[in-house]
């Protein structure tokens, strides 16, 4: 083992090739993951940020906000269900907003949320005609103090504060009181109109220690099957496009890991060939195949660690350099970690290909000259 370590330190040039290619693959893995997380975040962060345990839709809505309706009577019923601590209504409208100073065709895509229970990072609902705006809308001119005109009916909404990292279906979000939201949606999206006191969905907080799934079942029974209650993460998965994006990218990531295995196998096989003479001598001196192979694995792991670090560096650099709003890209710590683990697995697995050759090296070949 120590010999393998010394070889790494004294002959780094031998390992540069494998490290460089692995670094490229590491970058690719993290890039893919970052693109996926960016796409997903753009679609779902507003819902994922809800500070609740459950989301309640009407049972015919197929978990879609815009097709769901919860009348006030139903909301009251839900509030009474045992295990429910708090209930708040929520609804969304996707519209285009006219921003002062921008041209008549240069509109900002917004998702206007009406809410009662504030999600993470959002203050309590503002006054009538007001809203908080997500920072991603700033590059479109939507900032605190500005009054924008929302939708074809040009409903005026004044921005009174900023929130961060909350998007829905690639739209930056606005957060307003329930009344403001209802007025806006009825004026601008008549087909999706809502009556007084009606919400599209409910955010439910369960009592501390209660089992959320059990409470969900109780809610649906209490409303006679008119509602479908699910965990927030299930609701996130149901947002259109999310499951397709996730499965697509995960498949690509999976194949990339397989490629990494093969590439590691390839370059370590080349390295092993170069060291046949050295291994012959070491075996003659009493090294077992196990010891030598352990050294190969150690080198594989170190090379992978360095490649991962380089790849992470490049991926982070990209995150800093890509202007927000062009390509959706978010590098999460969990993504870097999972990519590192995949590569580690690929490295160890790829080294196995060299095992046969290491086993086959005959110690007797050391005698008779290094021909």
């Amino acid at each position, binding site marked *: 083992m120590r010999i393998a370590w010394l070889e790494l330190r004294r002959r780094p040039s*031998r390992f540069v*090739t494998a490290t*460089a*290619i692995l670094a*490229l*693959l590491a*970058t*690719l893995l993290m*890039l*893919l993951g970052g*693109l996926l997380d960016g*796409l997903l975040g753009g679609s779902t962060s507003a819902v994922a940020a809800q500070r609740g345990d459950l989301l309640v839709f009407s049972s*015919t*809505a*197929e978990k*879609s906000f*815009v*097709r769901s*309706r919860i009348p006030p009577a139903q909301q009251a019923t839900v509030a009474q269900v045992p295990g429910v601590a708090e209930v708040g209504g929520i609804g969304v409208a*996707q*519209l*285009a907003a006219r921003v002062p100073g921008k041209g*008549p*065709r240069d*509109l900002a*895509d917004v998702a206007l949320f009406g809410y009662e229970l504030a999600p993470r990072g959002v203050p309590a609902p503002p006054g009538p005609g007001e809203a908080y705006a997500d920072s991603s809308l700033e590059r479109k001119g939507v900032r605190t103090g500005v009054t924008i005109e929302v*939708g*074809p009916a040009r409903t005026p909404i004044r921005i009174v504060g900023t929130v961060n990292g909350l998007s829905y279906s*690639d739209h930056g979000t606005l957060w307003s009181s329930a009344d403001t939201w209802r007025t806006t949606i*009825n004026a601008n*999206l*008549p*087909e*999706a*109109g*809502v009556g007084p006191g009606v919400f599209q969905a409910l955010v439910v907080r369960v009592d501390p220690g209660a089992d959320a799934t059990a409470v969900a079942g109780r809610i649906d029974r209490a409303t006679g099957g008119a509602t479908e209650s699910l965990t927030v993460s299930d609701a996130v998965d149901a947002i*259109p*496009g999310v499951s*397709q994006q996730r*499965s*697509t990218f995960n*498949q*690509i990531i999976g*194949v*990339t890991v*397989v*490629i990494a295995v*093969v*590439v590691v*196998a*390839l*370059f370590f*096989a*080349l390295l092993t*060939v*170069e060291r046949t003479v050295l291994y012959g001598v070491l075996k003659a001196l009493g090294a077992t195949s196990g010891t030598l192979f352990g050294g190969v694995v150690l080198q594989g792991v170190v090379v992978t660690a360095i490649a991962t670090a380089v790849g992470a560096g490049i991926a982070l650099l990209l995150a800093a350099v890509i202007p927000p709003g*062009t*390509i*959706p890209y978010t590098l999460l710590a969990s993504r870097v970690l999972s990519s590192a683990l995949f590569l580690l697995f690929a490295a160890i697995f790829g080294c196995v*290909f060299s095992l046969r050759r290491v086993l086959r090296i005959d110690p007797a070949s050391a005698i008779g000259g290094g021909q």
Partner: protein
Amino acid sequence: MFLALKEMRRALVRFGLLMASIGLLVFLILFQQTLQTGLITSFVGAIRNQSAPVLVYSVDGRRNLQGSIITPDLQNKIVAVPGVGSAGEIGQGTFSVTAGGKLTTAAIIGYQTEGLGSPTTLVSGRLAHADGEVVALASSAGDGFGLGETVVVQPGGLKFRVVGQATEIGYQASPTLFSTYPTFEQAVLAANPDARATLPAVIAVAPAPGITDAELVTRINDAVPGADAVTRTDAVASTPGVAQVQQSFQVIFVLFGLVVPLVTGLFFLIVTLQKASSLTLLRALGAPSSALVRSLLFQVSLVLVIGIGIGIALYTPLSSQTLGSIPLSFQTGAVVLWSVVLFVLGLLSALVAVRRVLRIDPIEATTGAGLGR
């Protein structure tokens, strides 16, 4: 060539791993290309494969059927623009429906006039004429949207019958149904009793004789500030999300494409360095440099051809599958393009190894110096 093949046979594992690497990379690139196309088609196929040459959205609609609403006032202004040959309404809604016994989501697109919004890729049955008839996305047949089946809008219980099937008419990656406009209106009112009105999302227009699509687009946009007219092709490209998906994939393609020449070039450089002493010997025995270079390039070409072949072989069966709701297809153009590009890049990457071969001095066979690493 004899020596080249012999060497490869002796080092089968190494060359095999290289060909496997190239094969997997090629497969991944082609697979991603198909995924990208399939993904985009499942989101905007409905727009690409309908019959209206020019679509007029409301500016607020941001070129998205779901967000666009045409008021009667706006509609009148659009239709009045000189150059409009014929016009018809198109409406779109996303509904919960029961199909094949399960509750699921479907997009319904209703058109007023056949020839201005009807699907153009019919493969079985016929277009919808009467109320309650729909043409369904062919790839959703297995989910209860097959020919002759009944689809029920929820809530409300409104029934539709599938009278025809068309390919690549998906919208928002959902099973998509095309119907006449009255059928669409009934669906909207059945599903949402609170709905105040049913307004079209888009006015489909065809230019009058003597006017091109592009001209009509310009005329409408100039005359009606609230209208956003686009040709069908532009409508597909500028649907929100499409450009983003394409951009993301572009970056990925470039990077994966780079890995192939990198791996190939480095492999052959290392192998050349490792056998430097044998090459020196051959040169000393009288082999000309050109022979060694030809042998090297032969190996590179063979490896690339087999590697690319493996990639295509892995890709072909997968390209006829359906991934979730995304139908894939074999893209001949992409296969040819990438094969050529990667072959050329791979050959170029071997130039470094070629350079090393050319630098061999036969005299070193006697001195034993310069034996590579």
